[in-house]
């Protein structure tokens, strides 16, 4: 659809929109549609869906509010935005919990019909904020009776009132689409795909969408349309992708390119479950998803699949990873390649299941009995998950060990445009199994040595079914080279050192640490995982303001890149920003005796750019 509007269009560099309403109001869908449409329009985008607790709260309550924020821009962006330019609130509870993030002068669209007595009471409003004039003072308020308008739009299709009301989110979308000069086409296609089998529902949604759009076009109160132009992205084909999807696809690609089956052992847990859901769709890639009875079965089945010679992965979140600790010791002892994914969420214990946090780094590093080192890598953004998944597999195979891969709820559920890689440009990880012995099986004196090591100290991967390589592994200390059980004190010391050294040697097989900014200066901001985008944006801003600040984002957390110490020591101060109480900072202090400062936050929320920028400025001022 292309409309010619009579109203003036204002060009913007970027904008941030948030849809919020009850969990039942379809805000996630609205957000996703707006995101895709903006991406298709050529913007750079970043999103932040914010769910309520896993369980549905009673309709209209604050606990039930669900939000979806989209930041879209004509230049590179890395975060979903600190504040919001336009807020759509479907009910009073959504308004009261989200209003604080709307910038002064921002656009506020409220679904007027939801501001009835009951709705206001549930939100804790004594009087209606739509009526007392308070909102108009600060914002461009638009009261829209979406319920009535939607019902009118779908009239005659034979829908029940409940069904009609379910189309309200399409009305809201249509209105915002008009406001930001977006095409309805992608959403129309989506409606056809999704509701094609229920023609009256499809038609109702189409009508509601169009009605919303036309409302914007028509109603006088809304007097400006905005337009955010295309971003200059590197040429290529793009799609919008969520972190968990990118992770799943990265795993699929790695397995496919290695010519291996992909086994996922998983037990559902928020926010990791979508990896299981996504992989379950790709059986034609020889992907076998096993929903285990618990996390322990998930990880031990993964160990079994790795022993079997296939690509094996387990994925969970903090509490589930806690249950895997004992089995990961077995994985370390048997020196089998596999990937252990932790999509981190708010802890401790059950904590805040739907919120983001980075407080499981210690667990990944130290959460096992005995000296039990594992490599740890972390994804920086939704699209980065695709690359990191493949990198985890490369390290696992080339070094024959289990690899921890950390993401978090923010990355997992957030999305960004992803430039599709050329399949031919992806680097396959070659799997080399041990070869059968010429005179094997002891009869001619030649025996298979399952713990013989190469220059990386990695041992052979002997696939069951290969004649002459029959061997046994297990969790008791192994004699080096032969792999037999050994209680020998010197061997134990040797093996403890070997397993540690094996992890250290990965440092020879990863790129050196880069920084974004000057190679030395007043301040280095260090980050890992989800805060990447906020830190990058803040550091860019500080640099633009002429500050000698650089950004060092770590993908490799164990081992660190070889040049990391030198990088850290090139700045007067080091600030480690993480969504925990300073776990990476502790590790850096221990390793390098470096007096790094910490910017820490544990609120179940990502960093805001402003928070980081402010801290950069205080660090520089002090």
């Amino acid at each position, binding site marked *: 659809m292309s409309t010619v509007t009579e109203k003036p269009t204002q060009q913007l560099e970027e904008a941030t929109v948030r849809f919020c309403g009850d969990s039942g109001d379809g805000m996630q869908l609205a957000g996703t549609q707006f995101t*895709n449409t903006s991406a*298709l329009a*050529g913007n750079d985008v970043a999103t932040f869906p914010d769910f309520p607790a896993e369980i549905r709260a009673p309709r209209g309550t604050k606990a039930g509010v669900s939000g979806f924020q989209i930041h879209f821009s004509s230049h590179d962006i890395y975060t979903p935005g600190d504040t919001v330019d336009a807020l759509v609130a479907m009910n009073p509870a959504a308004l009261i919990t989200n209003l604080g993030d709307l910038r002064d002068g921002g656009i506020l669209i409220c679904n007027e019909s939801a501001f009835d007595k009951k709705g206001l009471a549930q939100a804790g409003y004594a009087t209606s904020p739509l009526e007392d004039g308070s909102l108009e003072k600060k914002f461009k308020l638009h009261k829209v009776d979406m319920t009535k308008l939607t019902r009118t739009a779908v009239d005659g299709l034979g829908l029940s009132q409940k069904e009609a009301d379910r189309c309200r989110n399409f009305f809201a979308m249509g209105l915002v689409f008009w406001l930001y000069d977006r095409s309805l086409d*992608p959403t129309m296609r989506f409606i056809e795909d999704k509701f094609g089998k229920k023609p009256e529902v499809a038609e109702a949604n189409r009508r509601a969408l169009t009605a919303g759009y036309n409302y914007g076009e028509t109603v006088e109160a809304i007097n400006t349309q905005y337009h955010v132009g*295309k971003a200059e*992205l590197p*040429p*290529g*084909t*793009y*799609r*919008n992708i969520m972190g968990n999807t990118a992770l799943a*696809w990265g795993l*699929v*690609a790695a397995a496919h390119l290695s010519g291996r*089956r992909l*086994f996922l*052992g998983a037990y559902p847990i928020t926010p990791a479950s979508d990896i299981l859901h996504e992989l379950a769709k*790709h*059986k*034609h*890639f*020889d*992907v*076998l998803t*096993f929903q285990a*009875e618990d996390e*322990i*079965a998930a990880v*031990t*089945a*993964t*160990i*079994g*699949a*790795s*022993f*079997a*010679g*296939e690509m094996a992965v387990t994925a969970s979140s903090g509490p589930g990873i806690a249950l895997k600790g004992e*089995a990961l010791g077995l994985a370390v002892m*048997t020196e089998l390649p596999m990937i252990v994914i932790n999509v981190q969420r708010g802890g401790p214990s059950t904590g805040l299941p739907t919120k983001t946090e980075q407080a499981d780094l210690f667990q990944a590093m130290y959460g096992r009995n005995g000296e039990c080192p594992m490599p740890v890598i972390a994804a920086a953004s939704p699209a980065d998950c695709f690359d990191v998944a493949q990198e985890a597999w490369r390290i696992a195979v080339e070094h024959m060990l289990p690899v921890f891969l950390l993401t978090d709820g923010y990355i997992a559920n957030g999305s960004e445009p992803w430039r*599709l*890689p050329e*399949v031919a440009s992806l680097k396959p990880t070659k799997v080399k199994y041990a070869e059968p012995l010429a005179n094997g099986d*002891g009869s001619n004196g030649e*025996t298979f040595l399952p713990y013989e090591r190469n220059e990386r100290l990695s041992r052979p991967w*002997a696939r*069951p*079914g290969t*004649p*002459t*390589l*029959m*061997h*046994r*592994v*297990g*969790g*008791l200390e192994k004699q080096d080279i032969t792999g037999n059980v050994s209680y020998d004190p010197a061997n134990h010391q040797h093996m403890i050192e070997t397993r540690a050294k094996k992890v250290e040697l990965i440092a020879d097989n990863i790129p050196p640490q880069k920084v974004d900014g000057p190679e030395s200066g007043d301040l280095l901001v260090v980050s890992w995982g989800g805060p990447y985008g906020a830190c990058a944006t803040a550091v860019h801003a500080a640099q633009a303001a002429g500050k000698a600040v650089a950004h060092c984002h770590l993908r490799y957390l164990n081992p660190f890149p070889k040049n990391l110490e030198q990088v850290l020591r090139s700045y007067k101060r080091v600030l480690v920003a993480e969504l925990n109480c300073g776990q990476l900072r502790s590790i850096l202090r221990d390793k390098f005796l470096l007096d790094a400062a910490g910017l820490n936050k544990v609120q179940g929320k990502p960093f805001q750019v402003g928070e980081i920028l402010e801290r950069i400025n205080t660090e520089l001022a002090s």
Partner: protein
Amino acid sequence: MSVESLPVLKPNDFASDQDVRWCPGCGDYAILAQMKKVLPDLGVPRENIVFISGIGCSSRFPYYMNTYGMHSIHGRAPAVATGLKTVRPDLQVWVITGDGDGLSIGGNHLMHAIRRNMDLNIILFNNRIYGLTKGQYSPTSLLGAKTKSTPMGAIDNPLNPLSIVIGAEGTFVARTIDTNLKHMGAVLKRAAEHSGTSFVEVYQNCNVFNDGAWDYAKDRDTKEDTTLELEHGKPMIFGKNRDKGIRLNGMDPEVVQLGKGITEDDLLFHDERAPEPSLAYLLTRMRHQDGFPEPIGVFRAIESPRYDELINDQIEQAKASKGPGDLEKLFTSGDTWVVE
């Protein structure tokens, strides 16, 4: 190597180079010996066989077999085996576990393995004690058992391994005895040949911490009166003189004396293929008390779909309907746009 040239293996070809380290006199030796005897008959090359165990005396078993193997962690062998068999249905997978490993810490994995009915052979060495940790009571220890951890006697009702397995609808359920070599061999062979999860309980003597637990069922003088050898399609007769039988009275089994007007036809006939597991369940309830014998042999053996087959079938179906996986196609599925 072509199939024809496959060498004929002997029991000793299945012995690994590791010294066997159980206490002298332990029942585990007999099971190991019998396993080595049975495997050559199955015609599966050693390299296609995998033994997975947990932790316990019994769980050292894989070290002594010249096959692929993993001595995993306590209680988790069925789960390890599940991952293995899912991706490699071509392998013959054995799970070796104990009454503690399989029914205490590992009870849930066992139950779920049974319900999935993958083609695994699970052998549970039941010695009614924790051997490796030196003598605590296990979930199969009898009420009142005085052990290191129960100096005044155990107070939890023991689990009956076969009742649990039937509760989870096991498709192959059997029991045998460490010293009854021929019987054990036959049962192990049938377990291996069964398509689906086979579960075998072996009465195993721990002569150090629970000596004599199964003497009543092993003793030459008593065993014919205390055990009942199940045979499919045959009436349930037992006793030294084969003059006692099991008859059904409503839902209750009773021991009857043959002769005196009671003939074989009055007896309960064993039907291991009964689709419903109720008979098998009832048989698991028969314990050596009130004159009842304990059944040994195959309680149940039915065909049922296997998880390992089904999951791989789904893979094939998906390939057939979507074509084999294609990354290009995957990446471009859904909405994309081009920046030039």
